[in-house]
């Protein structure tokens, strides 16, 4: 899966924010911490959930179950607003 190109990611007020570009209705946004930032970074390429989890485990010192739960939560939020291409 991959992040659709009509969404942008930026840090605003110290948090990671993803919004759709263009003004055709507000289809929502996703916002969060550095972990979300890293997940979105990984999703710039075509990746699997497992690949995202392992790239995060390289960067953050956290147990795998915790990281996987964060990744699944983020992916579900991104799917909900149609930001992912499977």
């Amino acid at each position: 899966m991959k992040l659709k190109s009509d969404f942008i990611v930026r840090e605003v007020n110290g948090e990671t924010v993803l919004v759709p570009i263009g003004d055709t209705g507000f289809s929502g946004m996703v916002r969060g911490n550095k972990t979300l930032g890293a997940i979105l970074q990984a999703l710039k390429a075509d990746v699997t959930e497992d690949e995202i989890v392992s790239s995060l485990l390289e960067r953050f010192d956290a147990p795998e179950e915790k990281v996987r739960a964060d990744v699944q939560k983020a992916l579900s939020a991104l799917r909900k607003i149609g930001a992912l291409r499977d």
Partner: protein
Amino acid sequence: MEGVYRFADLNVAIRTRCRRLHDMCRDYRASGLPDIVISLTGADVEREREKAAVTARREGRFAAEYPYDYLETLAAYRALAEELPGHDGFLIHGSAVAADGEGYVFIAPSGTGKSTHARLWLEMLGSRAVMINDDKPLLRFMPSGPRVYGTPWDGKEHLSANMSAPLKAVCVLTRAKENTIRPLSPHEALAYLLRQIYRPAGKEAAEQTLTLIDRLDAGLYLLGCNMEPEAARVAYEGMKG
């Protein structure tokens, strides 16, 4: 037709098929080299026609058939809003009032009562207050700080002035029985701002818009208000500092 106008301290050259835009912008006429050039085509106008129809459907309204020259004015403002982030600015949907020379912008979903509240300020403050733009003011980040600018794209009642003011505060308006005001953290304010600030279709401009929001240095408030004159007093006292 072609004309050069000064919006938000920028010279904007606009080429259109119809005269209407040039009549509408006549108080903003300028001369000199343009910072931004807008040359509208039939396709730009058709896109406005489609967008107006989509918006009407979404809001459950009857989709009116707008004349070409009116749609051309909308297309011009959209084109300007697409270019503004490149000049450290953006369009914000809201009602902007200058009070004692300082700019206050009220934002809320359409129909909440921004214009009504802004009018209460004008009634309360008399000659100390001016409506900068009642619908879609422009904001620019100048070396001295953010400024809010009037333009002739000024809403149903056509209330605007060719002027600007340093931005003092952005106030999110909600309807309430009692009048209360409290500061919003930048974190809380972001969701409201993103809904009312124009999000360009161009990727770079959209990214720059978020960068500008990150830099926004102004008071941020949440106002719960009714439509009584007291609402303006509570809001003004709460924000003027």
